């Protein structure tokens, strides 16, 4: 009897793997193979050796750009958290209808192309845009420079990435057992204490998931910082594109991409040890 059950479960265990087959094949052909190609280029072009990596790891330009990339991703993640957490809280604690309405508004920005959203910020923050107009109508003489600064690119990236944060936190908040809050209250926890000791720890997985997603996606941002950011604060993806477009430096560009990937994997690794990567998918 026992044996039968174990055989049955073994057969059942094969199913998930079979279902994964098409996706695995797809990833192999369109992700793993090209990635292997990138690795190969990074050590063979223009000549065999590790000189591309040496350049990336020691050159002051590259160090600067990498540092800036991680700093920007960190700032964007924090901003998304501060914007997203209260909104997710509102969604989790309002009526179902209102929550759906907010969710619709948030996901609507996903229906608009990335590039259009970036250009929309150019119009909004531009010299003749509504934001400058508002600032001037409040009596400020000098036109502030909003576009082509760290401010404008950060703002646009937060706008683009905040939905990832909100949805992750919302999904966790929604599942919180209300009786936990009630029992905490019955024991005298109030306001800040209730939030700090009960609610915040319960939502921590959502915060961690959202943060990792936003951070990792932000590391690879290309068009938004190029179009909206300041020329002094380049991000890695823009520089990789520039290396290849301007210098045909496929090897150097590949090495930069691999370093970026490597550091990202290290960050994910740290996250995994701390929280468990499997929690990312709910």
């Amino acid at each position, binding site marked *: 009897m026992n044996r039968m059950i174990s055989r049955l479960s073994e057969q059942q265990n094969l199913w998930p793997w079979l279902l994964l087959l098409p996706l695995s094949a797809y990833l192999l052909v369109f992700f793993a193979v090209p990635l292997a190609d990138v690795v190969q280029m990074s050590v063979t072009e223009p*000549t065999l050796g590790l000189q591309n990596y040496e350049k990336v790891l020691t050159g*002051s330009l590259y160090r600067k750009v990498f540092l800036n990339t991680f700093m920007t991703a960190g700032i964007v993640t924090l901003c998304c958290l501060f914007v997203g957490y209260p909104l997710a809280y509102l969604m989790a604690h309002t009526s179902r209808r209102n929550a759906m309405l907010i969710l619709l508004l948030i996901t609507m920005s996903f229906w608009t192309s990335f590039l259009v959203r970036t250009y929309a910020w150019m119009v909004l923050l531009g*010299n003749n845009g509504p934001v400058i107009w508002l600032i001037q109508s409040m009596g400020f003489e000098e036109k502030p420079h909003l576009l082509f600064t760290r401010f404008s690119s950060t703002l646009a990236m937060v706008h683009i990435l905040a939905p990832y944060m909100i949805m992750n936190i919302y999904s966790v908040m929604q599942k919180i057992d209300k009786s936990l809050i009630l029992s905490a209250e019955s024991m005298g926890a109030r306001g800040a204490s209730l939030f700090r000791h009960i609610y915040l720890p319960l939502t921590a997985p959502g915060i961690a998931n959202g943060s990792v997603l936003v951070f990792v996606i932000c590391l690879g941002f290309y068009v938004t910082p190029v179009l909206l950011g300041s020329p002094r604060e380049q991000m890695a993806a823009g520089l990789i594109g*520039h290396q290849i477009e301007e210098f045909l430096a496929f090897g150097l560009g590949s090495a930069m991409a691999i370093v970026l990937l490597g550091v990202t994997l290290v960050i994910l690794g740290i996250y995994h040890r701390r929280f468990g990567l499997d929690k990312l998918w709910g």
Partner: protein
Amino acid sequence: MTDPKFKSGLILPNRRRFLQGSAALAAGALAMPYVARADDKVLYVNSWGGPWLEAAKANLFDPFTAETGIEIRTVSPVSFAKLAAQVKTGVYEFDVTTLGGGDIVRANEAGIIEDLEAPYEGGLFQNGVASHAFATVMAWRTDTIKGTPKSWADFWDVERFPGGRSLQRYAARVLPIALLADGVAMEDLYPLDIERAFAKLDEIKDHIRVWWTAGAQSTQILRDGEIDMIGIWHGRYFEAEDAGAPVAMTWNQAEIDRAYWVVAKDTPNMEAAKLFVEFATSAKPLAGFASQAKYGALNPAANEFVPDSAKSRMPTSPANYPLAFEQDMSNWGGDPHEVSARFDEWLAS
């Protein structure tokens, strides 16, 4: 510089076959241009978009199709890297493209363009067929800039002409401009004094709000007043002027570049590609193209078909040409490649 970069070692044949296979797969799913590859009556041309594309479609593409039955489709954006990658992988997205003076020397040395013959006398340079001249000119907003700037020295003069500046992120075009601003005469520019140029660039760096990288972007920031003075391609400038923006420009110290048609090395559409390059640089089509886009036609035979009314906006017209200077890539004064790398470090520092 015939380096091994483009002979990618032992696995190339397999990789190429593999890439073609996967490209065909991708084509089915994504409707990429490869779909039509079986039909050799289509030629793919790399397009600059904007006023260039409008003029090219009306005067080069459509008449070529009418004459030969070969359909033309365009691929954007113009990408030097893609041209190189195509030859390397054997997967072609476009067959024909145009290159500027600096890029064509590099392309020819790297062996990524096909050997061509001169379709008209003096028309061939580094395996590119000379098509048209365009210029980088100084332009400004008339609503914010008081007075009339006359030279690149005025572009640098932020006391007299306060406001945000913009230049192209392209060292080969920016360095000569910096030297002119520093007082070097146009006829004494080449070979460039690279050190002096960078020293002069230091002075303006904080005032450059945008280093533009695409033609459409330069028009947009001038038209919308994001910057007050700009070094911009003349065709892109007139686009802003014609849109009604309060802008002005000068031909003084305009920097002329030449554009050349090239054929991607080993493209499967070789015959049609060569036919097109010959067509596009022949007198009448080129004259129509240059007249509409206000480029200077480089095939002398084209000039008799260019109406006088179009000439005032051309960098090569008798009135404008004496005010301008031409890029001299053969006597440039350094390795443009190394200078570009230095320029990038300078930008980020």
